[in-house]
């Protein structure tokens, strides 16, 4: 299983749900997990994080076990059983 933690406007879209568990298979990546997430939810969610060219929006933060995937292999970063994926749509402050 992979544990998805949901934050920001994504959480608001999903009625306040804080986390979701998804099965994880050999060869899974952050990108494939996001597609599975969207398929399970049956509503469009990934557009909050990535654009239609499968590029992360400026300001999207996806942490795999608390490491930003932009410093790993981005959407191609491999995901393994037990991993925690935190999803933050673009947000900011000061």
């Amino acid at each position, binding site marked *: 299983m992979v544990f998805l933690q949901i934050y920001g406007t994504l959480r608001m879209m999903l009625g306040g749900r804080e986390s979701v568990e998804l099965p994880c298979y050999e060869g899974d990546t952050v990108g494939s997990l996001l597609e599975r997430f969207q398929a399970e939810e049956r509503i469009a969610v990934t557009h909050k994080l990535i654009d239609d060219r499968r590029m992360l929006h400026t*300001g999207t933060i996806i*942490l795999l076990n608390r490491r*930003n995937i932009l410093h790993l292999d981005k959407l191609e970063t491999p995901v393994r059983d037990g991993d925690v994926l935190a999803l933050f749509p673009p947000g*900011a402050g*000061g």
Partner: protein
Amino acid sequence: MGNGWHGKVLRVNLTDKSCTVEPLNMEWAAAFIGGRGLASKYLTSEVDATVDPFSSENKMILATGPLTGTYGAANGRYMVVTKSPLTGTIACSNSGGYFPCELKYAGYDLVIIEGKAESPVYLKIKNGEAELADAGHLWGKTTAETEDAIRAEFHGDAKVACIGPAGESLVRYACIVNDKHRAAGRSGVGAVMGSKNLKAVAVRGTGGVATADNAAFRAAARDTLKMLRQHPVTSEGLPALGTAVLVNIINQSGALPTRNSQCGTFDKAEEISGERLAQTFLKRNKGCMGCVIACGRVTRLADPRFSGAGEGPEYETLWSLGAACGVSDLAAIVHANYLCDEYGMDTITMGSTVACAMELYERGLLGDADTGMPLKFGDADAMVRLVEMTGKGEGFGVRAGLGSYRLAESCGAPELSMSVKKQEFPAYDGRAIQGMGLEYATSNRGACHVRGYLVSPEILGVPEKLDPEAVAGKAVWAKAFQDVTAVVDSAGVCLFTTFGIGIPQVTRLFNAATGFGYSDEQMMEIGDRIYTLERLFNLKAGIDPSQDTLPKRILEEPLPDGPLKGAVSHLPEMLSEYYDVRGWEKGIPTAAKVKSLGLA
């Protein structure tokens, strides 16, 4: 005048009760823009850097920028520039709301306040007319009470900036609150106002701001607004959850200073997060005048212990009164935030001072005889009580009103103050975000996040993602962010626009408003000039480069938790590179640099 500036300075001498109008020095306006830059030029030219901040020789300048009150971005900002009683450095505090535009519409670019009134007064400004009025009946009132009373007696539509009881009793981090909930928050500008016996500035202004090239300004404004409406951060992230969305982001990144920076993560962060605030006390979002982003939060408390309504808390406050103190009681944090607004205190320094006091207490350096109550991390009631005591100037609150550095120093442990130049950190750990550590160390008003917000590239990935652990190159980024911020603050634009626009858009708006033809490079040079000018004042004030440092905890104690467990700040490596990039020799601007910026 018709070009962004009105060309008028209002000079108010509180000692002889005079209000006079003089022409704005346009040579200085061309070199320093307005707002922070121009007010700093006036202050550094008129005030000896060594004066006691509470003496009548210190001045305070309320400054709008050439873009304040125009449409086109988020242009409702003003600055307060003075010498800080918290840090001894130059202070520049920034606020939005409606007061800044009203001040501009009343016909002045700057209001210079000098001297000291014999008894409490307030300043009334109405469309180019100014006079001082007795404020004896307002002394002791909270900020909201003061605003209501002034509106009732002066003008129902007046906009008011005032101090609360904390400013009157010279709490060193007292702020100036305008429109009841917006604040020129940091560095104790409200205490300087209190030391001058000036309770409030009330303004009624119905004029406008003329721009030099209306068609060019309209086109620039249209394009800027389009960018802000399209950028995911300014169009959706900030309006939906405000700054509070950062609690979970920064906590997950291991950079949320917890229990006086003893850790970098807070296990109860979710309970004080923006998401939780949205589910509980948030009513709606709200903007400063004319702002399309509208990041403000209108909240109402519904809790058996507390009641009330107001605005906020912002991210910084959720952290300072929350994680910094180990407190996860959201209602108590919201309540304490309202108290800070009412008494007129900077929530960042207030919370950090409570956190420091808690560590001093837990280490036995403060006892019940000092504090009058147990003061342990996680105790929400104690946090609220200490905020109240500080605002009222009661008991141990008097010592807390000195800020964490002076408090910790009086206990023989100044290293337990999480501050730079005696001003407390905001909500980011310099061990987990290396560039922010450099930024704190080199900020001209002591530790500060809005002098060069490197969190944006290092954590948020805006405009591009940098590695927060990396050291190389951070000096170049720090200088660039500091200079951009100086320009934005001087123009009268909200810094939050820079998540969605950059210097090219600010330059275009500025040129269209003023009729100038500056390049982006010239604007950046102005930023460098302003930053260096502030630095020169600080050096004259006796703040030497040895103070460009961080507390021992950040430099030597490895982060004990989170994804960056084991990290310390690599400040020394970054600092020498930073000085090189600035053209400063061992922290002192070289003669050649000073000359090249026209500051000789």
